[in-house]
C-alpha cells in the first residue's frame, strides 16, 4: 500500500446526518485540512424523522428539515448529486458514477440505507418514504378520502399509517407479522399497540403478504396472500431497508452485514484488521457497543449517526494530527445509548437501550398500566438492557441510567 497523500482531502461518502456529524467532528477536533462530502441526493443534509410525521402532515420542504450549517463547516466541499461507484483502499481512490476518480487521504463511509421495495412492476401510486423527495411525492397523494394500504408494520409503517389517517385517508396495514412493531417491542406491548391503532380506525391485516398490486394507469387494489383484495389508491411500502454497500464490493472490507467497524469506528477488513484511515458511521456501521457486550451490531436508531459520526471524526482527527494522541483517543470509552421515539396519533413511545435483544419472557412492566401510561423493562440475563415508555418520559430517566451502568 502506498503512503497517504497529505494534500488529498478527507472524503466522506454520504451527505446525510452521519456524514455531516463526522465532518463537524473533524473540525471541532482540530483537523484543518480539506474535507469533501460526496452524496447522491441533491439536498444538503436534513433530518429524516419528521418526513413520516410532522412534515408529512404539513408542507414538505427542505427548509423545514435542513440541519443548520455551522460556521466551522464553511470550507467543507459538498459534491452533491454524485454517487460513489467503487473504492480502492490500496491506491486510496474513490470512483464516482460521473466517471471521476479522486484521491483521498482518509475515507469516511456514511452511505446509510435505502428503502427496500416490493418486487412488483412499477405503477403510479406505489411509494416508499426514506428521502425528502419520497415524502414530497407521497404527500401529494395523501388527500382526504384516499384509500391507503401500508405494507409493513414497523415503526415507520405505523407512523405513516397514523399520519395518513390524520390527513383523512382510510388506512389499512398489511403485514406478515403477528402484531405491529412486534420485533422491537415484543408480544405484550405489540398487542396493546394493535388495540390502540384499531381504536384510532386503522385496520390491520396480519400474517399476510402482498401477492399482487393491481391497476391500470395507477394502483387500484392490493391482492393478499390469503386471496383477499383491498381497494387502494396509494400503496406505501415500509418493508425494511438495505445497506448501500455495493460501491464497497471488492474493497476487502468485511461487508457481511453493513460494514464492520471496531469500537473506534475504524473499518475492519475481511481478514480482521482495522484501518486507521477508513471509518464507518451511521446505520450502515456494524460495531461493538460495550454497554451491552462485544457483539458488533448495526443499530438503526436516529441518534447513532450523530454518535458514531462524532466518534469517527475525533479518532480520525487524532490519526491525521499524528501528535501521539491517537492511542488515547481510541482507548476512550465509546458506548452510545441507543434511543428512539415514535409518535402515532396520541400514542407517544420513547425507548432507551436495545429492546430487540430480549425474548418475550423477559419483558416486565416497571410502572404504570399497559392500557394507559406505562414503563416497560427489557431484561437479558436479569440485567436491564432496554426500557420503553408509552406516554412516559421523565419516569424513564432512572432506568436509562441503570442501562448505561450495566443494567443492575
Amino acid at each position, binding site marked *: 500500500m502506498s503512503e497517504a497523500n497529505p494534500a488529498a482531502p478527507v472524503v466522506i461518502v454520504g451527505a446525510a446526518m452521519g456524514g455531516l456529524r463526522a465532518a463537524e467532528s473533524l473540525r471541532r477536533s482540530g483537523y484543518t485540512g480539506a474535507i469533501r462530502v460526496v452524496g447522491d441526493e441533491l439536498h444538503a443534509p436534513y*433530518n429524516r*424523522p419528521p418526513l413520516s410525521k410532522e412534515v408529512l402532515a404539513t408542507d414538505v420542504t427542505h427548509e423545514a428539515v435542513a440541519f443548520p450549517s455551522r460556521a466551522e463547516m464553511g470550507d467543507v466541499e459538498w459534491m452533491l448529486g454524485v454517487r460513489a461507484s467503487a473504492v480502492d483502499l490500496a491506491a486510496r481512490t474513490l470512483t464516482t458514477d460521473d466517471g471521476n476518480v479522486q484521491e483521498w487521504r482518509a475515507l469516511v463511509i456514511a452511505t446509510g440505507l435505502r428503502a427496500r421495495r416490493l418486487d412488483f412492476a412499477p405503477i403510479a401510486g406505489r411509494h416508499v418514504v426514506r428521502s425528502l423527495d419520497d415524502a414530497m411525492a407521497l404527500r401529494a397523494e395523501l388527500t382526504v378520502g384516499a384509500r391507503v394500504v401500508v405494507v409493513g408494520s414497523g415503526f415507520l409503517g405505523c407512523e405513516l399509517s397514523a399520519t395518513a389517517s390524520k390527513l383523512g385517508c382510510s388506512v389499512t396495514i398489511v403485514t406478515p407479522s403477528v402484531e405491529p412493531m412486534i420485533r422491537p417491542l415484543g408480544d405484550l406491548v405489540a398487542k396493546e399497540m394493535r388495540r390502540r391503532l384499531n381504536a384510532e380506525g386503522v385496520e390491520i391485516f396480519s400474517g399476510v403478504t402482498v401477492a399482487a398490486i393491481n391497476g391500470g394507469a395507477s394502483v387500484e387494489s392490493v391482492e393478499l396472500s390469503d386471496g383477499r383484495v383491498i381497494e387502494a389508491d396509494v400503496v406505501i411500502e415500509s418493508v425494511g431497508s438495505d445497506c448501500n454497500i455495493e460501491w464497497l464490493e471488492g474493497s476487502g472490507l468485511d461487508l457481511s452485514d453493513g460494514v464492520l467497524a471496531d469500537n473506534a469506528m475504524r473499518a475492519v477488513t475481511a481478514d480482521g484488521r482495522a484501518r486507521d484511515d477508513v471509518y464507518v458511521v451511521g446505520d450502515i456501521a456494524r460495531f461493538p457497543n460495550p454497554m451491552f457486550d462485544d457483539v458488533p451490531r448495526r443499530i438503526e436508531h436516529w441518534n447513532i449517526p450523530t454518535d458514531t459520526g462524532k466518534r469517527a471524526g475525533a479518532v480520525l482527527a487524532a490519526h491525521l494530527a499524528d501528535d501521539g494522541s491517537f492511542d488515547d483517543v481510541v482507548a476512550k470509552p465509546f458506548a452510545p*445509548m441507543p*434511543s428512539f421515539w415514535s*409518535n402515532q396519533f396520541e400514542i407517544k413511545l*420513547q425507548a432507551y437501550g436495545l429492546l430487540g435483544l430480549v425474548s418475550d419472557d423477559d419483558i416486565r412492566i416497571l410502572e404504570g398500566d399497559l392500557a394507559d401510561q406505562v414503563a416497560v423493562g427489557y431484561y437479558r440475563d436479569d440485567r436491564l438492557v432496554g426500557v420503553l415508555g408509552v406516554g412516559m*418520559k*421523565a419516569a424513564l*430517566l432512572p432506568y436509562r441510567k441503570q442501562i448505561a451502568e450495566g443494567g443492575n
Partner: protein
Amino acid sequence: MIKIEVDMNQCQHYGQCVFEAPDNFKLNDDDKLEYVAEAPDSERDNIEAAVDVCPMQAIRIVE
C-alpha cells in the same frame, strides 16, 4: 455568555437535551421541557451537543 432559543412549537419534549446539558434543560413533572436561556461559555460543548441530539432540531444557539 451563550444565548439559547427553543422553538416551543417544534419541541415534542423528548428530553434528549437533558442528558447533554442538564444545567440548562430539564423535564418537569408533567414531562414538559423547561430550559434556562443563558449559559456560560464553558457550557458551549454541552449546549452544542444538546442542539445536535434534539430529534425535532428545535434548539438554536443565538450567535
